[in-house]
């Protein structure tokens, strides 16, 4: 009994280590967390494997565990099931970063904080073409007068987010901002004027270029791109933006 439990623990912990390591290897770990926590996941991988080794050590000992205090008397199916659940879920459901469909739950953030932990300088200092969607939204939120951005060239990558109230010639290009993990994600987006907006697939990744205009959404200033080109593009390696 004890041995069976130890072996089960060994398998689950080894699988957990492998799962974390695999997510790191494929980069899918960035569907879940902010990149600055990557070292934490490296530690987690190592710790899970070390714990697996500990469990295996106990399972393979010739002498049975004399102090029965460690392992419970009955096989704890509950614990094992719960420990295995994240792995089962991770394997059963295809990994996908939060996208357009999550905006409805998470909402759009039109006033993201200007800077976090001494991050990149004020977005106004960045050349317009270099600004990300997050930079643009911040710039609009903090500038005294958004008219100064008129006709500045924008060149951004994000997913297509459409809302019925925008009509057929307008859509939003959005990203999620993740501070820690996907649980704290909030969406940022720019409006895009594009005649063929109706043809774009929801949640498809696009690169949008064109001059910027000032617009309003629910009374908040929001940047709009009068798009010159909207090209389909690959999902970026880091689908989220880090504030």
């Amino acid at each position, binding site marked *: 009994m004890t041995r069976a439990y130890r072996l089960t623990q060994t398998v689950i912990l080894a699988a957990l280590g492998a799962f974390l390591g695999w997510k790191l290897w494929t980069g899918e770990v960035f569907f879940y967390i902010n990149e600055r926590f990557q070292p*934490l996941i490296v530690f987690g991988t190592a710790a899970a494997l070390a714990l697996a080794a500990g469990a295996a050590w106990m399972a393979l000992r010739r002498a049975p565990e004399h102090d029965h205090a460690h392992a419970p008397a009955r096989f704890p199916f509950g614990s*094992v099931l719960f420990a295995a659940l994240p792995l089962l879920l991770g394997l059963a459901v295809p990994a996908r970063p939060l996208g357009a469909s999550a905006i409805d739950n998470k909402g759009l953030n039109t*006033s993201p904080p200007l800077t976090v*932990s001494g991050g990149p300088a004020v977005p106004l200092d960045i050349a317009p073409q270099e600004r990300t969607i997050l930079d643009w939204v911040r710039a609009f939120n903090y500038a005294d007068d958004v008219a100064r951005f008129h006709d500045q060239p924008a060149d951004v990558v994000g997913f297509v987010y459409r809302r019925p109230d925008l009509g057929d010639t307008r859509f939003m290009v959005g990203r999620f901002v993740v*501070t820690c993990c*996907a*649980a704290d994600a909030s969406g940022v987006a720019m409006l895009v004027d594009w005649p063929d907006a109706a043809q774009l697939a929801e949640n498809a990744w696009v690169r949008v270029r064109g001059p910027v205009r000032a617009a309003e959404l629910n009374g908040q200033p929001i940047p709009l791109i009068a798009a010159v080109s909207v090209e389909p593009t690959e999902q970026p390696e880091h689908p989220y933006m880090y504030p």
Partner: protein
Amino acid sequence: MPILPAGLADQLAIFTTVFLGIFVEAAPFLMLGTLASGLVEVFFSQGDFGRLLPRHPLAAAAVGSLMGLAFPVCECGVVPLARRLVHKGLPLPAAIAFLLAAPVMNPIVIASTLAAFGPGPILYGRVGLTVLIAVATGAVFALQRRPERLLLPQSLPAIGGAGADAGRPLELRRAPPALAERVRRVLVIGVDEFFEMGRYLVFGGLLASLMQTFIPQSALLGVSSGPVVSVLILIALAVLLSICSTVDAFIALAFTGTFTTGSILSFLVFGPMVDIKSTLMFLGVFRRRAVVYLILLPLLMTILAGVFINLNTTW
């Protein structure tokens, strides 16, 4: 070929991503906590902590609330470690104060709060209120002289308490064992506590991500004004989001401007003490009645402090 209707498949994908986000981020912290617990068990002897701490419950609680500076753990790792310290003879008031305060009173969290808000009322308020509430709650727990009324049997100190056998002697204590044997024991404790606490983490993460998937955040954030309501809303959000205390300051930063200072402080003080996953972990250590106090006392004090700040200061 899609098995589920598109809407449901989307919801499932969001739910899975949010849940794995919480789990992938919290599991390493939990392992850190259970390994620290193993190290404490193996390298400290029974009574070390009892001897080092002041006798007076209030003084002991005060020391306990600052122990996070020496054991930097966040709210996932603190529960197994606090239980281990009780097992090792740490007085209960000190352990309670440690349990509640450590997720904030540790160098990483103080640094992240400083980075987000700078040196100002939010930082000082967060640290000060956390210590105050943790010490007060620890002192209240000192009124109950019989720990077995508060703790589940497996959490009781190995000596004292209700009979020699009531505490689960996790290890047989003999002559100092060899290093390999010590390492093995650290790992075994790490493994067992990971499985024990991990299920609460998983269950709490499931609940939090379910709520995030099906209750739009705007439903909560729509009501952001009012000195009392704002405090209640951000406390509810702190519990629902169950974010790690190492980063919640950056999340709170997004609320400045729309929410009152008192409510943001409440979010930063109460969230690390109590959220869905830590509540479930408490249930693995304390008796149910003690868990109720452990939640209600900090909750009431946080609400009081938050509302007081909103009404009486101009921060």
